[in-house]
């Protein structure tokens, strides 16, 4: 366990150095968004890669965190409580949703559909909340318009001391590192080991007397809270929250980041998110080729050629180059492909 944490601190140190020199190459305004997406990807990387729960609705927690923050910020003004609410609200919501699904023994595709439907529900509701009757405290939900003009993050206790620009970048970068270390610590703890064991063989873990449903629910809620943190940071960065945060496109992107970066690792999804988000941004600057097309092609190729993702594949290649035996333990598989991969008519192709 100590060894794993030492490894984690090493990764965090390297990441910290990279994050510190990155502003020399890319503007901090853009970098901040990349880092926020990294945190978001980490949340799904945790519950999908380690918990085996493929959530099609991670955007719901992201959006919920952003809206909770924005609504609270308008009502309260000072940003500390809103920040806490931006994390706590999606945590509680994910816990409730997770309990509903896991205690109902839903799995695989059905879990995917429910999370997708819940995301759509949020999207539909938020999109149709333009009327003056949709008010929480003094905050109008605003429907399609979203909510602009709320208090962005400030130094705790001093509402006029906004954290913006470079300072905000370093704040989000630190948040990413802290979340990474916390998640690593969680995974190294007995709770994390049992969570991974549940992904490997839920029945066996239950037969040993662990309540898999409660544990999955808790892990799911932690994932929701991290996504909520990302949403909160996003809201403060964008200075507006819109129903688009709940869109299927947003959920899709998070899944793509994880797939491309590599499931079963934490660094993978973060790198996947930052690479692809930057790619999207860079593609947005040119007009030769549509960026949706490029993202789509990347996803198809990744599933076909590199189903484990960039980071694990790179790891294997490096290992081969240095002629070291693969040292990784618990090589994980995408959740669905082990549990859902046995249809009765499995094809011989």
């Amino acid at each position, binding site marked *: 366990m100590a060894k794993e944490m030492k490894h984690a601190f090493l990764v965090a140190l390297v990441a910290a150095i990279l994050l510190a020199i990155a502003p020399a190459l890319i503007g901090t305004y853009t970098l901040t968004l990349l880092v926020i997406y990294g945190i978001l990807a980490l949340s799904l990387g945790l519950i999908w890669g380690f918990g085996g729960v493929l959530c099609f609705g991670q955007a719901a927690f992201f959006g919920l965190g952003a809206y909770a923050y924005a609504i609270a910020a308008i009502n309260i003004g000072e940003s500390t409580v809103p920040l806490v609410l931006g994390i706590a609200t999606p945590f509680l919501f994910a816990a409730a949703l997770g309990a509903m699904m896991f205690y109902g023994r839903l799995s695989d595709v059905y879990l995917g559909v429910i999370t997708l439907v819940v995301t759509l529900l949020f999207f539909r509701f938020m999109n149709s909340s333009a009327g003056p009757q949709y008010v929480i405290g003094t905050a109008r939900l*605003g429907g399609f318009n979203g909510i602009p003009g709320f208090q962005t993050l400030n130094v705790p206790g001093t509402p006029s001391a906004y954290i913006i620009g470079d300072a905000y970048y370093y704040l989000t970068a630190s948040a990413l590192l802290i979340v990474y270390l916390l998640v690593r610590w969680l995974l190294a703890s007995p709770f994390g080991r049992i969570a991974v064991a549940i992904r490997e063989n839920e029945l066996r873990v239950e037969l040993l007397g662990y309540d898999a449903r409660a544990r999955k629910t808790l892990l799911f809620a932690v994932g929701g809270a991290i996504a909520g943190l990302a949403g909160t940071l996003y809201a403060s960065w964008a200075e507006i929250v819109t129903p688009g945060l709940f869109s299927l496109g947003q959920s899709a992107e998070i899944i793509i980041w994880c797939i491309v970066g590599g499931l079963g690792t934490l660094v993978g999804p973060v790198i996947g998110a930052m690479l692809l988000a930057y790619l999207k941004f860079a593609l947005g600057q040119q007009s030769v080729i549509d960026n949706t097309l490029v993202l789509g092609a990347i996803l198809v190729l990744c599933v076909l050629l590199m189903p484990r993702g960039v980071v694990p594949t790179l790891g294997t290649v490096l290992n081969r180059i240095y002629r070291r035996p693969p040292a990784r333990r618990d090589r994980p598989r995408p959740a669905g492909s082990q549990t859902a991969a046995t249809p009765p008519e499995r094809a011989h192709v």
Partner: protein
Amino acid sequence: MFSRRTFLTGSAALAGAGILAAGAGQGFAAGPIKLGSILDTSGAFDAYGKPMDMALRLAVDEINAAGGLLGRQVEIVAYDTQSDMALYTQYGQQLARSDRVDVVHGGILSASREAIRQTLRKSGVPYFYNVLYEGGVCDRNITVVGVTPSQQVEVLIPAAIRKWGKKIYVLAADYNYGQITARWIEKFARDAGGEIVQTDFFPLDVADFGSTIAKIQSAAPDIVVPALVGGAHLSFFRQWAAAGMKSKIPMASTTIGIGNEHKVLTPEEGDGILVAYNYSPELASPTNEAFLAAWSAKYGNTDAIHEIAVSHYQGIQVWAEAVRKAGDVAHDALIGAVESGLSIDGPGGNVSIDPKTHHAVLDVHLMEMAGQKLKVIESFPQRQPSDTQGVCDLAANPDDNTQYEIKI
């Protein structure tokens, strides 16, 4: 055509979304004046945005051809927000903080205006919103060169009631424009002795209006008033005609035609719809003829011209006039000029700025769609933005920063 971000003048060789661009701007007196443009030139609202973008280029070309402003050329830094409201704040921040533009023209939907208005206000970049909208924005940093409800709805609804009857069914887009405009429609309908039998709101992606058409029939109104917005909502007019409703219940709309819908729909689908706007290409004035000729010269024909392309064009003229009058592009001088009683002669007639509200005083014409054209029935010269004047006085309250909404 597919560009996400277009630099409209060749000299604008900025690389990478302003990441590398810094510093240039107000400090260099000899450098060009930077005009930030932020429009949906792709996506669901491109029918509005593309012609506005064309109008912007035309207006700036004309300004530069005439020697620029204050001896400086005008350079456009333009972003395509792809009909995505989240991109407005992002690009708005970029225009203000990285590109350091001297002015921002743009925003189409009221949602997009509200997304960037605060950012631009905080950054001290003057903002011109040149689109027909629901009225009520009271903010010294913004200048609105578009038609508001007291200019449009107050003309349109009483005319429709006189023509067809008292019972009105309202269909409105479900965001701030539709919500507030629906209330204005109700107010002006009541004032004219009419009655709203039902108001339905539709999110902007709703494209199936079958059940709505059934509901409208069950309510049996005398008039249907669609305040619908965007590409998806266009289906309503097709489905309405396909159900054979065209001949049964007449329509008066606050939005159709703004995006040249009358040219996309067939005459059978569009003819007879009553509208009221500031502009129709049919207007006979030397200024309009010159404008049509210049547009033709640049783009081949005048098909793309529509209401808000013209108001965008007029908005840029208003800004240019303010710069000339102020002798400076800086924020305070420019706003001072805006408040000094500006006036221009645009394709849609005389446009002057009301100093107390920063809203435009302009001509409005009651029109009917006929043969894919807007036929002027009656003209209402120099209407005041009285909806906003009733709640907003920037001379008395210069720090006001609210969008007032009508209460019913």
